[in-house]
């Protein structure tokens, strides 16, 4: 997740990382991790330094341009849950396709590259 400030909105964090802030803490599917109050510096905003520390997310800074990248949670496995996160990607014409629209169908998703 690319950041130009360290207190993005909860919605931005949820969309980029799959972690949503709830009263019980940061949650992804059935997994919830308690957070201290300082994780919410203002209504609707998240202090990513607190979130990063709690979830083992790397925060890498590009000091020259005043921006950061927040890595995924770490410490265990790549997947926290088997529930597929909400993923929406564009086709070659730029039209966004939400994978959730395929609910009710078995899906085989394969990553490839031109390189």
């Amino acid at each position, binding site marked *: 997740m690319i950041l130009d400030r360290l207190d993005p909105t909860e919605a931005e964090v949820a969309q980029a990382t799959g972690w949503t802030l709830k009263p019980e803490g940061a949650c992804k599917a059935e997994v919830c991790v308690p957070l201290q109050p300082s994780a919410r510096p203002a209504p609707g905003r998240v202090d990513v330094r607190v979130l990063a520390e709690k979830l083992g997310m790397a925060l890498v800074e590009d000091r020259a341009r005043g921006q950061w990248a927040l890595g995924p949670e770490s410490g265990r*496995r790549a997947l926290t849950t088997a529930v597929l996160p909400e993923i929406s990607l564009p086709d070659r014409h730029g039209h966004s396709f939400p994978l959730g629209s395929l609910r009710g169908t078995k899906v085989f998703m394969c*990553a490839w590259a031109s*390189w």
Partner: protein
Amino acid sequence: MDLPVWQALRSELRPLGLEIVTVALDTRGAEAAGPWIDAAKPEHPSLIDAAHSLDALLGITNVPMGVWIDEDGVLVRPAETAFAPRTRGFGEMKLPDAAPQRLKDMLAEAAKIRVEPDEYAAALRDWVAHGKQSRFALAPDEVVRRSAARPLEASRAAASFELGQHLHRSGHVEAARPFFREAHRLQPDNWTYKREAWSLVDPLQGPTEHYDSDWLADIRRIGAENYYPKLEL
């Protein structure tokens, strides 16, 4: 490219209830992946992930890698090498005599890469036929357990790579490279990070002054037979 093969498999399995989704991991987006997609004429969703977001979300470290998702949106197999049911392997490809020696050397190494296309396609067909009863459909806990280990270094590699990509796309090509190099150092077995960055400098992913490694040197170092881990179906 495997796209035409996936399209053929889709024609076979779509009437039986499977949809195929292909996702191109390409920093240069439609400019790079679009011509391949156009040529394959896929009938299935053929998407582009210019930010490599699937790398971090699912633990993808090379291509081709795939996941299986059931009707409820639950993964029944984590990211793993997804061999296309090829009609021929790398070893059967021929280059003209006048081809550069480097290309010949690359093809010679590629010919040694272990591929297991028949086993993978057979497992996929079994799951389509038997659903949850298929022995290849894993329980949620097993899916999580089999997904790649993620130490803090892998998270730092992902963040470094994302920042590098962001800078590259923003036109800060030189500024992007230290972040790509850091991602390579932190997670040396992530081929998507390496091959993408190499190819942004040299389409043949050869040695340059910008990176400490290249495809041919790296595959010789690890042994081509280890390029893809053995399938654990």
